């Protein structure tokens, strides 16, 4: 297909979006390919390695056709940890945001724990949960927890006062106010929290899996580094990048549908 024909089908935005990755790929190729002592393998080598990881048939070593297993392991930890975090952080955030006693009781403690980076929890997690997938799961939980919690609190606390007056004037009972006013008004903020939380879960999973876990994308990245299989390291990185991207796209699509009313969305 010629360039002019392509312009007819592909929107300008998609062309622009693809420009930077293509440029990186080209640069990567010309700076690495054909140099024996390059620390970074050329893109074609990485692509072949990725293919072998995914489908086998090229190198047929210990890593061939293991990508799905590792991916599924990471996916289950990311979504499992995230789901647990959301299940705790959403109701807790709503309570802290709307109920004075709960806020006074829990908010100071949570604020005190918040500056501790998630990665700083890793050694403690390993002591408590042992070396293995449970530490990784816990880390993902922690990573996703605060973004969801803080944005939920912010959302339910910052409902425009006028909307409460409008609802009361129209006959909404105090008990129904939460469902009819607070929750819908807080939805954009809650949604931001979910998106950030899920993004963070993907960041943290690699760290979590780098410590003695057998399966998972983080685990093979770490293992391959020790074996100097840089192509595998990069294949794992690219897989994580693409999965994280797709995951975020899905969340955004849901958000745009749910938040059509919000001028900041859709």
């Amino acid at each position, binding site marked *: 297909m010629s360039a002019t024909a392509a312009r007819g089908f592909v929107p300008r935005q998609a062309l622009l979006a693809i420009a930077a990755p293509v440029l990186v790929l080209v640069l990567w190729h010309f700076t690495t390919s054909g140099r024996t002592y390059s620390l970074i393998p050329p893109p074609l080598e990485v692509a072949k390695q990725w293919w072998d990881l995914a489908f086998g048939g090229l190198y047929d070593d210990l890593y061939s056709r293991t990508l799905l297993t590792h991916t599924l392991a990471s996916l289950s930890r990311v979504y499992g940890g995230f789901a647990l975090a959301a299940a705790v952080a959403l109701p807790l955030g709503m309570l802290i945001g709307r109920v004075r006693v709960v806020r006074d009781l829990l908010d100071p403690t949570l604020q005190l724990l918040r500056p501790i980076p998630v990665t700083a929890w890793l050694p403690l997690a390993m002591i408590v949960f042992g070396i293995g997938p449970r530490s990784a799961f816990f880390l993902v939980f922690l990573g996703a927890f605060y973004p969801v919690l803080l944005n939920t609190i912010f959302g339910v606390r910052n409902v425009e006062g*006028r909307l409460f007056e*409008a609802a009361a*004037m129209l006959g909404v009972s105090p008990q*129904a106010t939460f469902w009819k006013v607070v929750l819908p*008004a807080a*939805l954009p903020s809650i949604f931001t929290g979910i998106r950030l939380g899920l993004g963070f879960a993907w960041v943290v999973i690699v760290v979590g899996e780098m410590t003695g876990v057998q399966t998972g994308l983080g685990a093979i990245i770490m293992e391959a580094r020790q074996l100097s299989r840089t192509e595998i390291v990069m294949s794992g990185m690219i897989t994580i990048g693409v999965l994280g991207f797709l995951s975020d796209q899905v969340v955004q699509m849901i958000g745009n549908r749910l938040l059509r009313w919000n001028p900041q969305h859709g």
Partner: protein
Amino acid sequence: MAEPTIPILAAERLSKRFAFGAETITALSEADFTLHRGEFICLIGPSGCGKSTLLRMVGGFETPSEGRLLMWGKPVGGPGPDRGMVFQDYGLFPWLTVAGNIAFGPLARGRPKAEAAATARRFIETVGLTRFADAYPHQLSGGMKQRVAIARVLANDAEIVLMDEPFGALDAFTRERLQQELLDIWARTKLTVIFVTHAIEEAILLADRVVVMAAAPGRIVADERIDLPRPRDPTEPAFNLLRRRLSAMLGGHH
């Protein structure tokens, strides 16, 4: 009127004070007035004279510090659908469409979905927004939002409609159209309306009675009946005479 009727609303020595740091501000001092069913009154007065405060007490958003405020002879409680408020900043629910905003009240009061939707459709038509039934508030102009806010209280069977400078933020052309539409709706439904405004002309154009207020402390200083026949013409000499009278009462600043 041959027989004496119970007023729909009566204020007796109604006062409201606010704590402001160490001071207390008397936003409204010993206001007395009565309002009969179907009347359209305008509250007018300088900034800070307690117009909003009075309106918000009727709406149930503020409680009186002293005196009594009675609706049909009973003390006014918290906010409720019998007193519909049209806020100057609209107060629409941004996550609901025009139809959703108008059906909100009937649904909140337990009306079946189909009935609420039919009610919404009727009042969308009343305010001339049929084409925008599925639009969200951020897609509407100020005048359109104000129409939704009005339709919302009408759809909820409000007995008294409270309007706090509802057309203050609109351009002159839109304001005139909405004034006319409001008068049409009022003539058809025989609603009772309390309308706050800064503009003398708007008050004379709309009201059966103009309640004039003064500031520091906020109080009622006059209660003028406007006997001009409707529809009213602002260029008529009688209209002008009233305008000058009210202007003098307000200290000639208008």
